[in-house]
């Protein structure tokens, strides 16, 4: 256990949250993508976090365990002129909930900032520790 471990812990959390931010960006960018490489409308993605031990110690870092696809049904929008409309004139739009994604984005960005703050505090503590005995 040492202060250097804190950098690993906060660093793991920062990369996990930036991955979460990546997923949010992908969801928001594809909020209107009617089709994708498999011919289906884009499905919203979410990350699942997992606590992992850092150097076998009590303190845990974070890892993105997996990226899951949201299984909610696509939103049906009535657009009979659209090339992807079904026989009733409905187009299956992605199941991205823009409001949820915006909230998710703010949460991820705040969590990232918290960890940056942790790192900064730890760094200043380490610098002061290095100057023990120098007056």
């Amino acid at each position: 256990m040492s202060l250097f471990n804190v950098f690993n812990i906060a660093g793991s959390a920062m990369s996990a949250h930036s991955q979460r931010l990546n997923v949010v960006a992908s969801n928001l960018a594809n909020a209107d993508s009617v089709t994708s490489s498999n011919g289906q409308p884009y499905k919203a993605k979410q990350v699942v976090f997992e606590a992992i031990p850092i150097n076998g110690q009590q303190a845990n870092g974070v890892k993105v365990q997996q990226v899951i696809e949201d299984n909610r049904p696509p939103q049906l929008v009535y657009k009979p002129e659209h090339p992807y409309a079904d026989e009733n004139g409905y187009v299956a739009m992605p199941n991205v909930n823009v409001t949820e994604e915006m909230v998710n984005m703010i949460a991820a960005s705040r969590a990232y900032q918290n960890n940056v703050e942790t790192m900064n505090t730890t760094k200043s503590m380490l610098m002061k520790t290095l100057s023990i005995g120098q007056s």
Partner: protein
Amino acid sequence: MIGKLDQALGFHETALRIRTQRHELIAANIANADTPNFKAKDIDFAAALRQALASNGNPAQAALQQTAPAHMAAQPQPDTLHVGHPGGVQYRSMMQGSVDGNTVDMDVERNQFADNAVRYEASLVLLNGQLKKLMSAIQGQ
């Protein structure tokens, strides 16, 4: 001579070591603020310090008391505080639970983190003072 120096600086050294461990635990709590089923952990600083001082810097002695010759000695694990021991790592009792089973309360953690950092620096200042005192005793000015 070295023993005397150790005595003079040992208290703050122990205090700093436990502050570091607590710092790390709280940093882990902050890092895992959004991890499902993560339980926030902390140590009781006063109990941990008392235990570390009683064991003379050897945590194995404090962890297990041998009352008969047949008792086995504890495995020495100098750098780890164990869950459940007095002065060891304990789970924080939660104020308001969240749906995903996470018990990290960001306000409490930020508060404790800042508190711990300030007290760490206070220990450093005291340690520096002690060193300065020893230096002036040596130089005799």
